[in-house]
């Protein structure tokens, strides 16, 4: 403990020195730039450094900079025990207090859920199916994310036991009662579909609804109109699918989203593709043929193939 206190003292002194140097440097810089040293903000420093030391380096991290020591020097954990040498945390001597506290709490949560379920059974009630947590809509945090959250390094075994315990909790019939606790350790996957807006339905003169979309893959660009209440008729650049894509692989590419969304033979597609080769054209169509139909199909986002392929050319 004494060694720790010494180290902490040394670190504080070091930080003090750094900060005072930073303050002096800031005033010098303000004088060089002819500004008021008392009201010289971090933004002004950045501008001054960029002006005085122009750099053509691509990576912004590699360019010269002058930041406050708190932003640059890695933080150290604050003291975990008081002046008497008594640790603050109950689980301090487990060496990973945050992790074991979490596991301890999780077990209590699971036990409380079991008790609650028993009570409900005795009362003759059933779990509310509407409130059930949709497992497919989110994933468990990865090991680095959990480590970041707990500020502790975990071994693979510890992470596995964490996943096992929390899976038992989420699979419990009334896990929705502890949703806020569970969801702290899950990443919601719906971000993509929430961000990308689903295009509005447009109606033609005959009152037939259609949607429009456009997109790209590599150097190809596709402009698609999807008509609902169709019969599976596909027109690409004024010709049918076979004329446009003699290779069956390309036709399968175009078909896969329709097949997956079960709209094969039920929508008409009118598409224009330009640029690129045949496979990238098919790829552009695949993504765009899909996006307007996605409004009807909730589980699309979990398909790795159907998540947008951002392999778009730098020049495209």
């Amino acid at each position: 403990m004494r060694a720790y206190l010494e180290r902490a003292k040394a670190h504080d002194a070091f930080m003090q020195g750094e900060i005072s140097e930073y303050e002096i440097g800031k005033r010098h810089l303000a004088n060089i730039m002819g500004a008021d040293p008392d009201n010289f903000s971090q933004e002004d420093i950045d501008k001054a450094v960029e002006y005085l030391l122009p750099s053509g380096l691509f990576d912004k991290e590699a360019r010269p900079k002058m930041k406050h020591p708190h932003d640059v020097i890695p933080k150290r954990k604050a003291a975990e025990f008081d002046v008497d040498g008594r640790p603050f945390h109950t689980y301090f001597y487990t060496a990973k207090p945050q992790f074991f506290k979490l596991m301890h709490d999780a077990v209590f949560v699971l036990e409380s859920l079991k008790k609650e379920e028993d009570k409900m059974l005795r009362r003759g009630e059933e779990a509310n199916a509407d409130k059930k947590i949709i497992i497919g809509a989110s994933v468990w945090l990865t090991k680095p994310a959990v480590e970041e959250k707990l500020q502790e390094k975990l071994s693979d075994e510890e992470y596995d036991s964490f996943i096992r315990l929390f899976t038992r909790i989420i699979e419990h019939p009334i896990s929705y009662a502890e949703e806020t606790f569970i969801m702290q350790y899950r990443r919601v996957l719906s971000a993509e579909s929430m961000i990308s807006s689903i295009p509005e339905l447009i109606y033609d003169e005959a009152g037939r609804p259609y949607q429009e979309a456009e997109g790209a893959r590599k150097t190809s660009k596709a402009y698609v109109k999807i008509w609902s209440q169709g019969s599976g008729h596909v027109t690409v650049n004024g010709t049918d699918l076979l004329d446009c894509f003699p290779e069956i692989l390309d036709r399968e590419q175009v078909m896969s989203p329709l097949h997956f969304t079960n709209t094969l033979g039920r929508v008409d597609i009118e598409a224009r593709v330009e640029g690129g080769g045949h496979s990238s054209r098919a790829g552009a169509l695949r993504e765009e043929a899909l996006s307007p139909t996605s409004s009807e199909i909730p589980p699309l986002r979990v398909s790795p193939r159907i998540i947008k392929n951002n392999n778009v050319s730098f020049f495209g």
Partner: protein
Amino acid sequence: MFSIVRPVLRRSACACRLITSSSSNNSSTEQGSGTINFNELFQKGIENPIRNPVKKGLAVCRTNQTDPSQHTIRHEGLYYRVAPEAIQRWMKEGLHPDIYPLFRAFNESCLMVRRPAIEIMECMRAADYSLPAIRYMLYGRAGSGKSSTLAHLMHFCGSQDWVITHVPWAPVLHRYSKERVPSTFKEGRIDQPADAAKWLSRLMTTNDPLLKTLNLKTHRKYIWSRREVTEEGDALTELIDFGLQRVKYAPDVMGAVIRELKLHASSGNVKVLVAIDGVNGMWEQTRYIREESRHKFFHAQELTIVQHLMEFLKNDWTGGASVCTVDEGATIKEMNDPLTSYMPRFLLGQKGFDFLDPFIPVHVPDYSDKEANSCLDYYTDRKWIQHPAGLTEAGRTEMFFLSCKNPLELYKVSRRW
């Protein structure tokens, strides 16, 4: 769960295949991230094809009417059985090469009765054969069934005792002929004795019993050499046999036979059908190099056989008909310059079109819904489609989408099921 679903989505829905693999990799770490609850999916109204198979035993895809002369529009989209003898006589060559192994696999040979063939049959039934021979031109995109339609028409005419002269694939004459000699009869044209002899032998096998029973005679004397002479009034079969024995004279014999057949048809002794597949190849440059320069090629019009066949295609005779197809494959494609049209005017070019005009163009379209379903019914009946998913409505929709109902593509797609 996946064991039920995977075969259904096996080929086209690669997406699903990837899902299954990723979920098995990440199952311990990312519960639910890569998995799809298919049961949920189906509950949401997405059809489970396994549960909705196409009704068996109800589909009618065949007709018992094996005589093509009785075929009418009622039989459209139905398969009729072609006797092995008919295959040997009229369809031994000329159909798509993949269809012959298919016939063996099916243990029978069946052709579909299709609208273009019926239309031409109706025209042939109604035609006045005292007027110049009508030329029918089948056109359509690759794999749409032009050659099969031609074969059906040959069967139709053959079963009514027409003499049939068939060129299974005209471009062969100017691409792969091994023997070429300058003509001794007429300067400036090229003889292909082996090809001419082949044409004569095909004429014999196609019309063998018929030519003997008809007992056609020659209209004039033909002097081949000092010793070899065909007298006026000799049998036409003797003339053909002479051409087969003295292959040197086969191209000239071919011209004589064509002249005789035209005269006999015009005088009403016999009806003649001229069937040429890929007729636009007759107005193409050949692959045969001229002696004077490596960069100059002969034109197909300089070939004796082509000149004789063009005599046949003229409408200066009566009592017959000619049915030709124009095909994208018969035209020489330039590198990186795909053909943009399958229309007769485009493929024949100005000269070919002017020569053949007037003709009756008959479009051979891809399968209609009825024909496509009939085709898959037949494939199912023959156990060509093995996979349970191929027997479902969803599987069919998929096959139709991938093939665009083009007959050849539909066959290629169905091979994978």
